[in-house]
């Protein structure tokens, strides 16, 4: 981390999705993502960013947190998760089904913060 450029990931965000910005499935920000057993099995064979995502989602984790941890834009993160969802490598649960999960509170707070910013 010696140069300004180094603060960014090596791969430009648009390259991670091949330039795609839309998802086949709507994916709310407060949704929680979890890697399936198939996802865990294939993780070593996918690209580095998807592998990191599958590792991260071993426990329920929010979309916003995934984006922050992987240092990718929210929009890119959504596309990556939707791709994994289509392949059956992750499942997505609405936050209500995971009340009490540590991830849910953070997602909810992020959502509230987002709303406040828009006021």
């Amino acid at each position, binding site marked *: *981390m*010696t*140069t*300004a*450029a*180094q603060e*960014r990931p*090596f*791969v*430009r*965000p*648009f*390259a*991670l999705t*091949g*330039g795609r*910005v*839309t998802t086949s499935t709507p994916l709310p*920000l407060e949704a929680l993502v979890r890697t399936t057993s198939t996802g865990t099995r294939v993780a070593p*064979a*996918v*690209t*580095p*960013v998807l592998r990191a995502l599958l590792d991260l989602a071993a426990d329920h984790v929010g979309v916003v947190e995934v984006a922050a941890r992987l240092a990718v*834009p*929210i*929009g*890119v993160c959504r596309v990556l998760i939707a791709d994994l969802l289509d392949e059956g490598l992750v499942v997505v649960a609405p936050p209500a089904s995971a009340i009490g999960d540590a991830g849910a509170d953070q997602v909810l707070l992020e959502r509230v913060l987002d709303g406040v910013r828009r006021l």
Partner: protein
Amino acid sequence: MTWTWTISGTTALATAVVLALACSWAVAAGTRRRARRLVTAFGAPDGEGQLRAAAERRGALAPVVAAALRRLDAERLVALHARQAHETDVRLGVDLSRRNQELIEAQLARIDELERDEQDPDRLDELFELDRLAARMRRNSESLLVLAGVEPRRWDGVVPVPDVLQQAAAEGEHLDRVRIDVRNDLVVTASAALDVTHLLAEVFDVAGSTSPDGPILVTARVVDVGCVVSVRFGGDAGAALSDHPTGFAVIDRLAGRHRLAIDVFPDPGGTGVEVRALLPSGVIERRSAGRSGFEPVEWDRVPVAAGAGGSPG
């Protein structure tokens, strides 16, 4: 007249002057012989010394030799000035490219900020367009630096081979046509990561313009001396080489810097072209199974010449 092949163009010109003047002026056979000896002396290692000595001596040929030597000196002075001017131009070019780079990095940082929280797909799409253009501008600017013999940027830390390929595709003009089928645990060393990415982006551009449509297929396999990245596309191998002098000049410089071997030939699998880039073992490492980081690769016993395809590392 084998000596003509052993002397430089400048000296050849001076020789011609001596020869022409000697032939027209020297009447005596002895003088002609001396002239012939002097001309031959140009090809000798100490030829110029002999000629300078001859110019000092009295005789029919002395003024002729002295005139030729003066002309030689003048040519050298002109060449020296031209070289100095060229070096100044290169320094200015490098300076301007560096300034361009700083601006583009600032631009990318701003684009990053805008992209980070953008939730509207249409606006994100527009930002991606700007991002792609900036990434290509950065590569152009860095190509200038590469051709000037300067290292454009530094990167700390190793980079997985699939990430290098993905970023190379991103920096090229034909991202949507590049199909990367590479799954391995290899990483490119920090000192080579940016250059290898740049080189592959140039290869992808050559591929995209040689084959106006159709996919650009990328595979990789581990061999006994490193990792071979194979890029296949439609079109003619000869045209790929001859139509992209700038691209291949950059590829050549970058390959030389890291001892990569680049081969371009007709695709053995059918119609089309294959470009193979051998990343030698000094440029790549394999991720270790443990947490300690990386370890040298235990190379598969597959010779480079075993052909394309096969299993990735």
